[in-house]
């Protein structure tokens, strides 16, 4: 696997609590992405980053925020988690927006 890790790998939390997921890469790739994967919906883009402090919204960005203060880290925050945000979250990286994406192992988040 490419040098990309996600933490935590599993998390159970309660509705209304804040949650932060971390994606860390050692490849120095410019682009980083957060997706969520739900049965019947495939992967849907939440937010992506094209450089330090440069981010943009994806298809399903409501209820999520991101930050990228350095090249290697991309944080996804759920300010107030809801049950509809129960999902598997994948981080991905790429050298260019047109290029191959490398995926992390995923974080399974359960919001009770």
């Amino acid at each position, binding site marked *: 696997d490419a040098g990309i890790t996600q933490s935590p790998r599993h998390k159970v939390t309660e509705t209304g609590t804040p949650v932060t997921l971390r994606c860390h890469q050692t490849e120095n790739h410019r682009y980083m992405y957060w997706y969520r994967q739900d049965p019947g919906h*495939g*992967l*849907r883009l939440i937010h992506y980053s094209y450089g330090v402090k440069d981010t943009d919204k*994806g298809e399903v960005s409501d209820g999520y925020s991101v930050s990228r203060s350095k090249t290697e880290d991309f944080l996804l925050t759920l300010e107030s988690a809801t049950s509809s945000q129960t999902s598997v979250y994948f981080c*991905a990286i790429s050298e260019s*927006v047109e290029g191959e*994406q490398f*995926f992390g192992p995923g974080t399974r988040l359960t919001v009770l």
Partner: protein
Amino acid sequence: SQQGEEDPQALSIQEGENATMNCSYKTSINNLQWYRQNSGRGLVHLILIRSNEREKHSGRLRVTLDTSKKSSSLLITASRAADTASYFCATDLALTFGSGTRLQVQP
């Protein structure tokens, strides 16, 4: 809306048979990519085909692209039980994936 949509949703074949999956998309592209996902894992890139290419091969994989029909197909020849996985297509710029084709190869 999804930019890439795979068809069929599920496919079950016997080991040694060929498996064909299709992908349709909606807007112009520079390239189209196919990915594979084993259960519980992240996606792994298989092959990229550019808009000016019509066919591309990689081992037992053959990908075709028809930009006039906005469609692509992935052929896995001489399938193996280890090919059991979900397969996704994705187009550049749209950064979205379809729901995938779940391939089951029976030994």
